[in-house]
């Protein structure tokens, strides 16, 4: 065993650091650090900078314009981005739709859509969840009925992240209701500007409005926007869900969060001493740090196996659960750290958020605490993950 990065990996890390150092603007990293909302242009600029460097699509094969990094390189990149408070790369086109098109799309779809994703011509969003189908995707009810060279789509999608910025959405729709629940589902690409589509923001408990409901009312979609075969959409959706989960553990986010907690706990005072020297707080912090050190290693172990060509099994479910629990504990520590100053409601939609006095802006950490309750709910809730783990354990297939 060799726990440390190879010289090549270290050189790569230096390269990443130098790039981040040169490319990130403080006005943007400051917003990320304080969990303030980004402008659409903040995302777009970062997308363009990465594209210019050829680092936008680490997971894409070279033939489609990807960087084709090793799993360890991707891990290094993600971790460095998180520690540098880089904006996240909007994943819907790059890490979700892209691989599906590469595997199941027609040559025409590949040559039209993939470059547009890289160039940032389209802003994609995701239409999976429905009000009646949360963890139970097979229950989805949005229908597409074929009329000549068009599908006519009716129904409602929900939890569509950043849908307010998107001009395209990829959707799971029901094309056959006679068959068993998971069959009869198709994978459609839909232009958000088609008549009959309405987007409504959902305000979350922290006042944020990043997720949306999307309504479809007799929306016409050309048949060439069907990916793969009709009624095979479930297969593509599963591929998308199990594929590309290298960052599921969120190690970089957790490390950045832990660093932020430590900063806070050194400047907050409990009596004469900084909070970080209070035994109970220090114990909470240390326990999470120990858990995180172990999880980061688990993550690397799994990555290194993936690099060696082994398919990730229930380990990604394990990382999802432990990763979200750790990140939520860090958010919990963060609000504890600021003590009485956790109470201001500093919604991300407040326009003068950069002008708020520091003491009041501390309330932002509570918003993050509430917002990140979502981590254990979305992307396959932790209950679903436990179910997967247990099923495998009792199936004997470890």
């Amino acid at each position: 065993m060799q726990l440390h990065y190879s010289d090549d990996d270290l050189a790569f890390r230096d390269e990443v650091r130098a790039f981040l150092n040169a490319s990130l603007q403080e006005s943007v990293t400051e917003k990320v650090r304080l969990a303030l909302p980004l402008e659409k242009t903040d995302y777009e600029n970062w997308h363009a900078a990465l594209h210019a460097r050829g680092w936008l699509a680490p997971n894409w094969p070279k033939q489609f314009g990807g960087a084709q990094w090793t799993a360890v390189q991707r891990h290094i990149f993600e971790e460095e981005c998180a520690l540098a408070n880089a904006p996240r790369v909007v994943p819907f086109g790059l890490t979700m739709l892209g691989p599906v098109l590469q595997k199941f799309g027609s040559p025409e779809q590949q040559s039209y859509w993939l470059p547009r994703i890289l160039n940032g011509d389209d802003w994609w969003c995701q239409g999976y969840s429905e009000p009646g189908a949360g963890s139970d995707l097979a229950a989805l009810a949005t229908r597409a009925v074929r009329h000549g060279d068009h599908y006519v789509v009716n129904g409602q999608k929900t939890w569509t992240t950043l849908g307010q910025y998107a001009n395209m959405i990829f959707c799971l729709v029901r094309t056959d209701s006679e068959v068993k629940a998971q069959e009869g589902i198709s994978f459609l690409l839909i232009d958000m500007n088609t008549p009959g589509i309405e987007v409504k923001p959902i305000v979350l408990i922290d006042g944020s409005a990043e997720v949306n409901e999307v309504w479809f009312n007799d929306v016409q979609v050309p048949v060439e926007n069907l990916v793969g075969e009709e009624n095979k959409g479930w297969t593509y959706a599963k591929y998308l869900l199990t594929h590309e989960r290298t960052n599921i553990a969120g190690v970089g986010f957790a490390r950045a969060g832990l660093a932020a907690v430590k900063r806070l706990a050194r400047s907050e005072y409990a009596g004469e001493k900084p909070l970080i020297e209070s035994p109970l707080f220090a114990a909470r912090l240390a326990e999470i740090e120990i858990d995180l050190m172990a999880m980061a290693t688990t993550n690397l172990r799994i990555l290194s196996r993936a690099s060696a060509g082994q398919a990730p099994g229930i380990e990604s479910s394990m990382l999802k659960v432990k990763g979200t629990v750790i990140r939520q504990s860090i958010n919990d520590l963060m609000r504890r750290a600021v003590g009485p100053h956790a109470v201001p409601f500093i919604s991300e939609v407040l326009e003068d958020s950069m002008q708020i006095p520091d003491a009041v802006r501390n309330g932002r950490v509570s918003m993050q605490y509430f917002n990140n309750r979502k981590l254990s709910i979305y992307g396959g809730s932790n209950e679903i993950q436990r179910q997967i783990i247990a099923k495998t354990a009792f199936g004997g297939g470890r």
Partner: protein
Amino acid sequence: MNFELTDEQRMLQDTLRRMLASSQGSAWQPLAEQGVFAALFSEQYGGLGGSGFDIAVVFEELGRAATIDPVLDSALLCGWLIAEVASETHSELLADIVSGEVQLAFAHTEPASRYALSHVETTIEQRAQQQVLNGQKSVVVNARCAGYLLVSARDEAADDRNCIALYLVPANCSGISMYYYEMSGGGQAAEVTFENVAVSSADCLSADALPAIESAVAAAVVAQCADTLGAMETVMSMTTDYLGTRQQFGRPLATFQALSHRVADMLIELEQARSAVILAAGHLDADPVTRDLHGSAAKNLVGRVGQLIAEESIQLHGGIGMTDEYQLGKYARRIIMADHRFGDIDYHLERFIELGKTPGDF
């Protein structure tokens, strides 16, 4: 031993529950009309109640309905402070508080005090013919609607238990500036700056106010815990209703054993919280050590249970629990934010340990 409410307390509870269930927005006026504030004070101060259990009954209902009026910070906390230190000199003001005519705000916490009640850096100085207040107060709840501020200050820099004075200052005094904000748990507060605010010696309610502050905060701790208890009851019934109704994979969520066992654990802890509130309420009139020992026990336990119930309820609801439109989030914020007022679970655990070193019979 008797764990039943008195007939008066039960009537008060029924009235409140009915009234708050139908009220929209502020309930201050109806609360005043029903004499609810009077229930928070003993007859000696013009009230009709004032025991720990009276307070617990009122705040459990306020929490259950997620009422946003500043009953805790203005009526109870400031009211008890006035009652403790100035019931004779300011009997009229006290009467106005009991009747709900006037609102106050307690300007005590400072940017660096965290949860310590004895940490006061705000100064009171003699300058020429007058006294001036200078300093910065944090999280002054209800500052926006308060006619008066109760301001703590020292005439020397000593950070000890003595020499903390309490001033009654009209909120519109020149030299006072405020930065207002809404609070996650409901209601509003402000950061308040005092810059050479002139006061007279008649405005000084007490030159040594810490024992009174501790007593009023002890009542606030009971109230806060009862409020959280009430909020948790609502959350639990929302959660069991939702799980009993919402279908997934073709059957109600309630039939999924992994979820239902978690609900069982939440219900067990809710009973624990109820007992802790009863203990704290029942010892509010005890000697300070016994009183604070039970107060800290309750604040710690209710804080832990609150976190469990708030987090688990959101998780068990799934996505809908994250939305602002659904009422759960409002309650979850109220419950979690309660831990940031009057000392959090760690502060109270440490205080419990410290107080436990004092020999006593509790």
